[in-house]
């Protein structure tokens, strides 16, 4: 058992408990302290992997990545809303594939979810290194193949 991981998990779980319970009497806080200990003991090795390096930098970079992602989500919604509401309905769906440079599961999941959330593209599948992406029209597909997002994700998870 890694005591550092246990304590970190314990603090996170306990904070979560207190925020969600919002009661500060002896019973609720006491139950939180006890339950968090059990949960942290059972799951501390799930939360942190021993092999992972530069965890703090990755977390900070991920937080810095979020505003850009939210901006992209807003763009995506305006784009889809336009296509849905325009009488001519300008869509031309196609499936595009590209090979990824990302290695870790977390980075790939982040990229897949980011692709799904951003303009006109939905991730269908990842087979080995290849992403299968369904694009609603040609422009979003081209935008994706430029790889801006992949580079950003690679930067977040220090794989560039």
């Amino acid at each position, binding site marked *: 058992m890694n005591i550092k991981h246990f304590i970190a998990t314990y603090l996170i779980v306990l904070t979560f408990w207190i925020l969600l319970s919002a009661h500060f009497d002896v019973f609720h806080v006491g139950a939180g302290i006890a339950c968090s200990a059990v949960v942290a003991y059972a799951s501390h090795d799930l939360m942190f992997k021993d092999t992972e390096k530069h965890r703090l930098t990755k977390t900070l970079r991920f937080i810095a990545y979020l505003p850009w992602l939210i901006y992209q989500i807003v763009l995506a919604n305006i784009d*889809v809303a336009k296509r849905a509401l325009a009488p001519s309905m300008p869509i031309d769906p196609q499936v595009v594939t590209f090979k990824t440079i990302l290695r870790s599961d977390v980075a790939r999941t982040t990229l897949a979810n980011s692709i799904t959330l951003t303009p006109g593209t939905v991730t269908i599948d990842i087979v080995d290194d290849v992403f299968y992406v369904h694009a609603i029209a040609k422009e979003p597909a081209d935008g994706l193949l430029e790889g801006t997002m992949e580079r950003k994700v690679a930067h977040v998870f220090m794989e560039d």
Partner: protein
Amino acid sequence: MSDTTILTNLLTVLLLLIGAFFMLAGTIGFVRFPDFYSRMHATGKCDTLGEGLMLVALIVYGGATFVSVKILFLIAFILLANPTSTHAIAKAAYDVGLEPWRKLEEGVEWMNTDEDRGETE
């Protein structure tokens, strides 16, 4: 009513309206788009922002309370769960072998899709 309350209420209503607009656009897209995959675009994206904006409106209305923190968690989970489930459904459809709809050559309406698919099945 003080100025800040009016401002808060105004912002809440504005966020709710924009959120509702995106939900509506998503639903219209869901009805209008020709096939399964393009419909995922409409629901997977518009729902995320629509729900997100509405929840932000509730936070603005409620102020800095514990309930707001819970709503913040809700937003985070929606941001995580929505694309994941969209992807899961899309992958399931792709694995089963559902062909994505392609735009047909000029002069052919997209309405013909269903007939096309009927022939291939």
